[in-house]
């Protein structure tokens, strides 16, 4: 009998490009650096606020430029994709949720998460207005 010579196929660098499921996964993961970017922009604002009115004014004026506004529009889109993809994967991370003796479907859990997000964002908008 001939000796065995198993062939190991290495994973290709573009492994994720051929499958739409993997493309969505990579898009989901790629939101992370942008979440960090926004956190740093917010942090910069806090630092400017701590430095005084002049620094704060400069910060606001910078945010009013087309470049920074366009970036924030992009960030809103990216954060929204994060919201959808987060609650889409959430059912996978939970033990069965039993309501009225029946197990909740994954879609119901995702829907509940998205509803909660909508509510929280609406409350934030109101509180941000109320705080002013």
């Amino acid at each position, binding site marked *: 009998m001939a000796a065995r010579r198993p062939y190991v196929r290495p994973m290709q*660098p573009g492994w*994720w490009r051929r499958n739409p499921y993997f493309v969505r996964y*990579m898009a989901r*993961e*790629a*939101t*992370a*650096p942008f*979440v*960090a970017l*926004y*956190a*740093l*922009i*917010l*942090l910069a*604002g*806090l*630092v400017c*606020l*701590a430095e005084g*009115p002049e620094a*704060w*004014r400069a910060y*606001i004026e910078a*945010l*009013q430029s087309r470049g*920074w*506004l366009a*970036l*924030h*529009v992009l*960030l*809103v889109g990216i*954060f*929204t994709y*994060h*919201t959808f993809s*987060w*609650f889409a994967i959430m059912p996978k991370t939970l033990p069965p949720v039993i309501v009225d003796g029946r197990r909740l479907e994954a879609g119901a859990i995702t829907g509940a*998460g998205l509803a*909660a*997000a909508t509510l*929280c*964002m*609406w409350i*934030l*908008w109101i509180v*941000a*207005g*109320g*705080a*002013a």
Partner: protein
Amino acid sequence: MSKRSNQPFFWALFGAGGMLSALVGAMLVFITGIAMPLGIGAPGDLAAYDRALAVARSVPGKLFLFVAVSLFLWHAAHRTYHTLHDFGIKPGAIAWVCCYGVALAGTLVALGALFAVGF
């Protein structure tokens, strides 16, 4: 027995940051990055130094801003680090320090800034 992983600590922060950013992130970005500078709606008033300062000085405001900045950074650090190899980058010690180092630094600076704005 295999060595126990210490990922749970960072994974918990990843989860908390991911949940917070999923629940409020998009709106927060809109408020601070679009409504505030453009003066849209009531949040537009936050562009005024006094009003922004009042928020940062309030206890709930401090808490929220700290948690948002810090947890967003820890979430991003963990996810970025663990996705590097998916993009073909072998993650080593340098990558680890870069990813989580930014989160730690940001957390400390946020603490400092929120202390410096006063009470």
